[in-house]
């Protein structure tokens, strides 16, 4: 009895440590979002906001905010960038997700289920592009984009983001497709064409895998910072991560940075919440 209790205790402790490890830094940021600049600067730091306020959330969307004691917090100069960022990030992420899915489903299917010459080498090429750090292609892309006039455009950013999402999502889906039972044989005996088999049999069978792949593409694109920082910062095509970094470098505004960070966490959070079932299914498969 006591040894079982001891085991439970250790388990609880281990989970507590893991949770603390993940959530403490998050909490620190969340806390900032509801504090003023002076409260944040105080030492020793406050463990929680004593007088939580929503000033930063109003400021980043371009509204002034008056505290109960009459102090006025001016709207952020970055507000336009943030709002553009939300819009652009959504556009880029959605377009990237759709194109990635449309390209990757047939691509991975072909690699996973068909035999053709040079398959191994082509597959290695895909894997190689997964292993490339994005920064390594930044300069070539930048010089190319300057010549093509693609800097500061959504089109340019979408193209560059696809070069990350397509290989990595293809890599995931190839593995998933490989594990499906050989229903193509059944489909051939039943008289279905290859295209019909892919569209009407394989895709419905692989629904959860494809959904998770699409989510990964969305998240990669939504979180993408390195390319956005160089290619679109300050333009009308700015994305949320690039816009947010303004609070870090130009006039440091930790409270507003925290507020916009919370904003940027919303879509991934919602996706994870609604897709839990499929994500779990994919892991079992």
């Amino acid at each position, binding site marked *: 009895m006591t040894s079982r209790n001891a085991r439970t205790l250790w388990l609880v402790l281990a989970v507590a440590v893991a949770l603390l490890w993940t959530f403490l830094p998050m909490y620190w940021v969340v806390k900032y979002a509801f504090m003023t600049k002076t409260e944040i600067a105080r030492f020793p730091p406050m463990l929680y906001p004593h007088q939580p306020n929503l000033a930063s959330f109003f400021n980043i969307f371009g509204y002034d905010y008056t505290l109960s004691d009459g102090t006025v917090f001016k709207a952020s100069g970055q507000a336009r960038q943030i709002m553009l960022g939300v819009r652009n990030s959504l556009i880029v992420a959605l377009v990237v997700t759709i194109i990635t899915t449309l390209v990757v489903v047939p691509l991975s299917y072909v690699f996973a289920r068909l035999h053709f010459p040079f398959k191994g080498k082509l597959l290695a090429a895909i894997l190689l592009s997964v292993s490339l750090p994005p920064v390594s292609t930044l300069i070539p892309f930048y010089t190319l984009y300057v010549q093509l006039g693609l800097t500061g455009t959504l089109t340019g950013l979408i193209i560059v983001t696809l070069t990350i999402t397509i290989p990595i999502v293809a890599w995931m889906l190839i593995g998933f497709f490989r594990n499906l*039972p*050989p*229903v193509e044989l*059944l489909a051939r005996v*039943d*008289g279905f064409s290859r295209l019909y088999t892919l569209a009407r049999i394989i895709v*419905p069978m692989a629904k959860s895998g494809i959904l998770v792949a699409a989510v990964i593409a969305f998240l990669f694109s939504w979180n993408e910072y390195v390319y956005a920082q160089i290619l679109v910062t300050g333009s009308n095509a700015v994305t949320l991560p690039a816009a947010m970094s303004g609070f870090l470098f130009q006039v440091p505004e930790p409270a507003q940075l925290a507020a916009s960070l919370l904003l940027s966490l919303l879509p991934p959070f919602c996706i994870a919440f609604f897709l839990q079932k499929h994500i779990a299914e994919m892991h079992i498969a």
Partner: protein
Amino acid sequence: MARIELRNIVKTYGSHHAVHNLDLEIEDGELLVLLGPSGCGKSTTMNIIAGLDEPTSGQILFDGADVTGHSPHQRNIAMVFQSSLLYPHLSARDNIYMSLKRSGLSKPEIEARIAHAAQTVDVMHLLDKRPGQLSGGERQRVATAKAIVREPAGFLLDEPLSALDAALRLSLRAELVNLQKRIRTTMIFVTHDQIEAMTMGDRIGVMRKGRLEQIGTPTDIYNRPETLFVAGFVGVPPMNFLKGALEKADGRLWLVNPSLRMEITGEFAQAAPQKEVILGIRPHLMRLTEAGAAALPLTVYAIEQLGNEAIVICDEPGGGKIRVVASAGFSAAIGARLNATFDSAAARLYDPASERVLATSGKA
């Protein structure tokens, strides 16, 4: 239902010959089992009959019409794959329906056919379940329903029972044979399990290394194996082999080796003498006996009690293992000396070089 004919089928993968010049005829309504170890070309042969694979050369005829270039669907074959493969995301009903989706039949006709097929194999109550919710035996039945619903020209099964446990395999075996006789369809069944082959087939085609070694009824294959391979592959416990020389003396033929001198009677009595032969005799046809010239001295290696009989596994002086069937409960110490004999008329003689049975008259 159709008569299926294979003419000089060759299948190569690069330099590898999967099937060598295969000629095969399957009668309308016959259940033919293709038997062989893995890699013998039996699955390739089935895929070629199905139209899933194209032969490198040769012809396939259904009822005399050349279908070599036709797709599986055009040939109107039905197939049950390994582990009774079904579409995992569809219900049993939809799985069966997929067989008729491209058939051009009217809706009510399709409904009626599905109901009839489901009744035939008794899966009416399973139609709304998905394959994942079915047991191995139920999946097998649904896969069978999916196959017969098409009223196929040929019904092909590729080791459908291999993933199931032994007891289930036994009952499904009988079920399939019963079904095949009831609906009188031409059926080709691929397996590596010789018991499955013996119990199910009207005829058995034994394959090895892409060649058809022998084709015939189970009784034929068991009693008159034409090659050493068939002799050793079919039958439990496996056939015993003895090496020796065939010598002519006093106008009679003798099998001679250092521990045995036995007159050959029966079918092979007129065979030509030769230096090396292999004699094959079924364990059931051997009996323990007193020592003598026509008795083989043996050393007990192990005894397997089967309840109704005992199999005594022995070392023979030539270095091989000999199995003798003794009465149930037979006991002897490991290492004990025994003698066994048999009626040479029941034995088969093989040429070790060609691995084929000897010619029964001396003219060869």
